[in-house]
């Protein structure tokens, strides 16, 4: 997979001012539904809701297609469409624009999202029409908002906008999972999804900051090893004061590229001292509209985007001129993907070396960045430790599971890693970590899938497992294969989910496979599409799954460059291959198990034969049929016969509910809106195999790899093995799938054999552990949730009693002193005055007795006085 030209130049940007329309349409659709949806529903024009929703999706898909066509016309290295609306915010070096960009990778994602999104919207029309929650408009509003967020995530030109989308999809998945919020458990599932995602986001943010300030050399060792002397002082970066976007960009030093000449000592043109004088860039007129609080109807942000006017697109200084020579590349901390890619990928800037030799907490910076960013991916794409929310997310309606938890949201993590391939490629231990976690998740989730009875649970664990595969791909370094598996998975997993949706709808909201069986007679189209999708996911040739999965496993086998926590681990590649093979067999086993249990044998729904309900202790997400009994059995409203007028050509929707009228227990085929989507998806699952025909077969690079090569520039040193070996490994893959198929066939064909029940009796202990998902949920509850609640109660008690008590104590102490003062005042000061009075009285009383009234005593007194005077006269000398 060698690239022709060694020295990569900066990305050449094509300005496309219509890009922001792609996310705008779903947003408008959502707004209309939020504000007027319930009015439509109440006034009987219920179909208007899905017209708006599907219409918005269709428009968005058309714009995306137009962009795709424009990109096709561009030469390979110029395929980068960019559109900046305005500067979101900027302070110091952190400057963020509301800007959209499409490069081949995000183009593919956008196409997947809009195409499959439209199909799923179409599917939901039929599926949600009779839904008992009577919130048709709310469903479509959330779905549109979800697509808007997903598009924001994919098309975002910088980390912050990606994070906008990242949390936006989290919010929408919360809204959609907890769609049936009247059931408290389903609401809890929504909450669980959001909080677990937040764990991931915490990791994402930490990784982001590490990378951002790493570019500024925050952790640069004082002596920088080799490579062009790019000495960035933190002072210049984190402390550079710039109050708006232009000033902030002016701060970034420029590296001018010399064709292979020794890179000149890169003088950082930007003066060290922050520009004291305020350069007066084109001022963003202080928008008056938010100051006047009067208007409050429609939150005016996207709707009135036009009046902001496009802020001066800070056209990057990348040369429009010819490739490479004399081009200026911006260096230093940046949130923008393109600028990040330019400075890291181009060796002349020295950033790559600079990043490599930075260490944080004793660990290599890039490894830490990789691990933290991958924690974010784990949260969003349900990898091992943070996967617990995905199975519970099946509480949402099936189209939601299909769109969000199969095709789009869960793949965000893979997309992010693919988008930052040049960062991950720099650090083998980061790649090793990603691959390892991917493998573990693949095997772990596959094993749980074996014994689930709820069809959606099986598919959920299959999704987690397949995501594991994708991460093996991007972890190992074959980013295009990871993206390709993402594409194929989007098709066949959506088809499987929608198939299961159609089955559930057919069996009157029955999700437990033990109550199905023999549906191939009743639902032929669903059956065939489900079979094709199973064929694809199991990895049999001529279906997409085979090509993407085998490419990943093959590249895994041939990679010796992985490392774990700093120590090179060449054995990791083959080990991953073997685990991957195991997971593949598991995948085909549980997929065909689900196929046989639902579609072959006799229909078990309704008779309620004494199936072992008892031992299904963990029906945490109980099938809706007994959760809200009243919901299911109310009479279905008369179907709205008038097919809605298709405003736009594409959505030839309308929902004749012909087959649904009969109330009887016999399952029935779903209406054409559903089956059509299933057929398209099944076709897609097969057709997109053409994109990935391996070089071994066709002699030239697979189409998709060529398409993605401008975006995925990281060169990863795989070991070259002869094509023959590749054929052998492909055969091995098919063999693994066959083994799984045979096992499923034997055990579950027509549900006749008693072997599964017997096996379960023998290994009941193992069975219950695996059935209860290794008690991971209980573990988390014990380790995370209960301690934090206890800790918070303790802190609240501390706050309420200790600190408050101190304050009140201070108050009472003051009161005490006041009391003492009062007492002293009353007793001592007053006392003294009274004492003088009593003294005089007592003195007077005692002296009275001297006055006896007899003259002689007075005479004695006088004589005594006289005698005393005479004596004194003699005594005193």
């Amino acid at each position, binding site marked *: 997979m060698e690239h022709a030209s060694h020295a990569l130049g900066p990305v050449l940007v094509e300005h496309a001012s219509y890009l922001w329309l792609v996310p705008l349409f779903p947003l408008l659709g959502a707004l209309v539904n939020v504000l007027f949806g319930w009015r439509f529903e109440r006034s009987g024009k219920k179909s208007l809701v899905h017209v708006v929703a599907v219409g918005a999706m269709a428009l968005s898909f058309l714009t995306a297609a137009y962009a795709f066509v424009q990109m096709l016309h561009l030469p390979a290295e110029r395929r980068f469409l960019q559109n900046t609306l305005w500067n979101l*915010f900027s302070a110091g070096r952190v400057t963020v624009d509301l800007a959209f960009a499409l490069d081949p990778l995000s183009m593919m994602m956008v196409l997947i999202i809009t195409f499959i999104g439209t199909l799923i919207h179409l599917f939901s029309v039929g599926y949600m029409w009779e839904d008992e929650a009577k919130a048709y408009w709310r469903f479509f509003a959330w779905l549109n908002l979800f697509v808007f967020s997903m598009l924001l995530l994919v098309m975002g030109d910088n980390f912050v906008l990606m994070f906008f989308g990242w949390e936006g999809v989290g919010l929408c998945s919360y809204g959609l999972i907890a769609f049936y919020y009247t059931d408290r458990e389903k609401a809890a599932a929504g909450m669980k999804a959001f909080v677990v995602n*937040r*764990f991931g986001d915490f990791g994402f943010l930490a990784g982001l900051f590490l990378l951002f300030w790493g570019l500024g050399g925050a952790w640069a060792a004082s002596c920088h090893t080799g490579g062009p002397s790019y000495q960035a002082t933190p002072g210049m970066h984190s402390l550079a004061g710039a109050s708006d976007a232009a000033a902030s960009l002016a701060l970034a030093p420029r590296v001018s590229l010399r064709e292979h000449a020794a890179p000149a000592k890169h003088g950082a043109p930007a003066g060290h001292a922050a520009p004291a004088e305020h350069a007066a860039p084109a001022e963003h007129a*202080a928008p008056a509209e*938010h100051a006047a*609080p009067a208007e*409050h109807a429609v939150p005016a942000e996207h709707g009135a985007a036009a009046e902001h006017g496009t802020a001066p697109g800070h056209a990057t200084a990348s040369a429009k001129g010819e490739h490479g020579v004399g081009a200026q590349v911006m260096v230093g901390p940046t949130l923008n993907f393109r600028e990040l890619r330019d400075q890291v990928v181009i060796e002349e800037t020295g950033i790559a070396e600079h990043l490599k030799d930075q260490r944080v907490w004793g660990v290599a910076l890039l490894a830490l960045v990789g691990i933290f960013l991958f924690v974010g991916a784990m949260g969003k794409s349900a990898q091992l430790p943070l996967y617990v929310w995905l199975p519970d997310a099946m509480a949402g309606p099936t189209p939601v599971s299909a769109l969000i938890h199969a095709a789009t949201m869960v793949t965000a993590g893979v997309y992010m890693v693919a988008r930052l391939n040049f960062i991950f490629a720099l650090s083998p231990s980061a790649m090793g970590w990603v691959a390892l976690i991917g493998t573990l998740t693949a095997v772990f989730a596959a094993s749980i899938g074996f014994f689930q009875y709820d069809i959606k649970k099986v598919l959920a664990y299959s999704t987690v497992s397949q995501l594991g595969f994708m991460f093996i791909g991007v972890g190992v370094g074959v980013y295009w294969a990871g993206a390709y598996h993402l594409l194929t998975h989007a098709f066949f997993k959506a088809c499987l989910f929608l198939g299961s949706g159609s089955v559930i709808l057919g069996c009157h909201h029955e999700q437990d496979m033990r109550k199905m069986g023999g549906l191939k007679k009743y639902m032929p189209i669903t059956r065939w599409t489900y079979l094709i999708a199973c064929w694809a996911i199991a990895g049999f040739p001529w279906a997409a799954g085979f090509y993407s999965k085998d490419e990943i496993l093959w590249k895994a086998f041939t990679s010796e460059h992985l490392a774990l926590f700093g120590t090179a681990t060449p054995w990791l590649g083959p080990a991953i291959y073997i685990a991957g093979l195991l997971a593949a067999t598991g995948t085909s086993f549980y997929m065909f198990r689900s196929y046989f249990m639902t579609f072959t044998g006799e229909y078990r729904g309704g008779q309620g034969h004494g199936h072992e309900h008892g031992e299904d202790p963990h029906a945490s997400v109980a099938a809706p049929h007994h959760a809200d009994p009243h919901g299911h059995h109310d009479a279905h409203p008369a179907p709205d016969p008038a097919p809605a007028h298709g405003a736009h050509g594409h959505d030839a929707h309308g929902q004749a509910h012909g087959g649904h009228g009969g109330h009887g227990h016999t399952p029935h085929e779903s209406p054409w809106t559903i089956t059509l989507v299933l057929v398209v998806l099944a076709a897609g699952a097969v057709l997109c195999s053409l994109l990935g025909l391996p070089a071994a077969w066709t002699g030239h690079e697979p189409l998709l790899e060529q398409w993605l090569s401008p975006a995925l520039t990281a060169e990863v040193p795989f070991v070259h093995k002869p094509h023959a070996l590749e054929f052998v490994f492909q055969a091995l893959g098919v063999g693994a799938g066959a083994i799984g198929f045979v096992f499923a066939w034997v055990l579950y064909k027509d549900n006749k054999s008693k072997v599964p029940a017997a096996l379960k009796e023998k290994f009941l202990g193992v069975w219950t552990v695996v059935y209860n998902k290794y008690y991971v949920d209980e573990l988390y509850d014990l380790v995370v949730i209960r301690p934090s609640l206890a800790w918070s109660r303790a802190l*609240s008690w501390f706050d309420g009693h200790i600190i408050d008590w101190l304050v009140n104590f201070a108050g009472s102490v003051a009161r005490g002193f006041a009391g003492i003062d009062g007492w002293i005042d009353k007793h001592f000061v007053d006392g003294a005055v009274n004492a003088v009075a009593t003294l005089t009285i007592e003195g007077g009383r005692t002296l009275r007795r001297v006055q006896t009234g007899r003259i002689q005593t007075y005479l004695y007194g006088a004589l005594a006085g006289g005698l005393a005077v005479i004596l004194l006269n003699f005594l005193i000398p």
Partner: protein
Amino acid sequence: MFGPNNVLAWATFLPLGGAILIVLLTALRYVSGLSKHALDQASRAIALCTSGLSLVAAIYAWSFYDPNAAGMVVAGKASGVQLVQRAVWIRGFNVEWFVGVDGLSISMVLLSGLISFVATIASLPWWSGAKDREMAGMVEDDGHAGGAHGGHGHGEAHPKHFSVRMVPGYMVMLLLLQTGMMGTFVALDMFLFYVFWEVMLLPMYFLIGVWGGPRKEYAAIKFFLYTLAGSVLMLLAIIGVYYNSAGASLVDGSATEHTFNLLELAAQGHAGQFASAAPILGFEFAKIVFVALFIGFAIKIPMFPFHTWLPDAHVEAPTPISVILAGVLLKMGPYGILRFNFAILPDATRWAANAIAIFGVINIVYAAFVCLAQKDLKKLIAYSSVSHMGFTLLGMAAMTPTAISGAVLNLFTHGIISGMLFLIVGVIYDRAHHREIARFGGLAQQLPEYTAIMGLAFFASMGLPGLAGFISEFMVFSGSFPVYMTYVIISATSVIITAAYYLWAIHRMFLGKLNETYRGFPDLNWRERLTLYPLGAIAIVLGFYPQAILGSINTTLHVLVQNVRL
């Protein structure tokens, strides 16, 4: 009417004019026998008009303010202070009426005007259906004894709603409070600042103490004494600084040997005037004054050990007063610290920066955990305010351009969001007359519109990107990361806890089966819409275009950080 040099005076004293008018009207009632109902309505109208005009003045001030203008020249350097109005007030003490606005205070002036106007609207019983008023106990008992309250579903008659009790008194206090707040933000003279600081405290005490909830006296007294203790320390520090300051000239040119002028003091502080002052009690002068001022302001933030007055004050205060208390009063602390501590005592600031950061982290994580265990919704939001103000502390302590801009932006965004949050608590309290989260259930079915606006507010406070909360959080984190990496990572965990307690509150209150006692509750009425939707709109707009505020505040703050750092 509003010219660049008198707009601030108008903004400050318009509410005071309204208050005086109401007092005159009340007097008129005894003279000419104005009926009680007429007086109530008149005082409500006056309060609404004057606070509205004050907001208009604040908006004018915002439009006059040009972030890149050099502004007033102080000690040879452009200070960036504009819309200046100066006059000699007390010649003996060199005290001036010195009012001006720079990057730091322009957003606060706008916030104060906005939140005051919203709070005034929320204090009126108008624009709401008869059933709403009857349920909330807002029945004007003109004449007939004690409004007969149907008391929807609850046996006991509701206590009269605060908006119909002693209305003229309430409105006068409210307007006085607004004057105090606006004055504190625009004052650039230490003495004047302290006067407005005290003017702000008094009406707040009465508003909580008279129109508050069951334990109002305790809460009011606790609030008042706590803040007063702080302001005593502050007064001592101000006097210390005054007597150690070098001379400056008054507006009419006469020279003085000491000065209260904040800008002069900042220039002198920067030039090391206070580093050489005589030590107090053996400690260095600058450090003692810094700590005294800091504690005085920290009580207002509120910072960790001094925060226990906030939950009590909030729980007992009526809704509009909680809005003002959380929306504006909490911003006084950080504003004061930036205006006084950072500007005048740069080296003491560098000395104390790490400690402030630690307190910031404690504030964030400690309060977040405490929120998780709260049973009363208003206490939960009060503690969440404590947690969010922790971000400002962390941002200020990091003293990098991004962090400090994030910190000040957080003041504005938190003001808007916590204003919304308390209004939302007010909505449900007016209907259910209790705030225990556990007793609610499934409100989403009964009150869909209320649930929507609540969702917006809760997710904004949670820091969801696309809404105002996230921007300031992100900037504080990214700005402080290179300086305090471990602190930022610790406080980043609060992102998870915040999401947890808010979602758990939503789960217990709004999702699940509808609790029958709340069947038939009316949804938002127009008054509540009129207060909630503007704030919601601003939260969304600031989510997608924060540069509107940041553009104005960046320049001044970055110069401030440069001064403190060098």
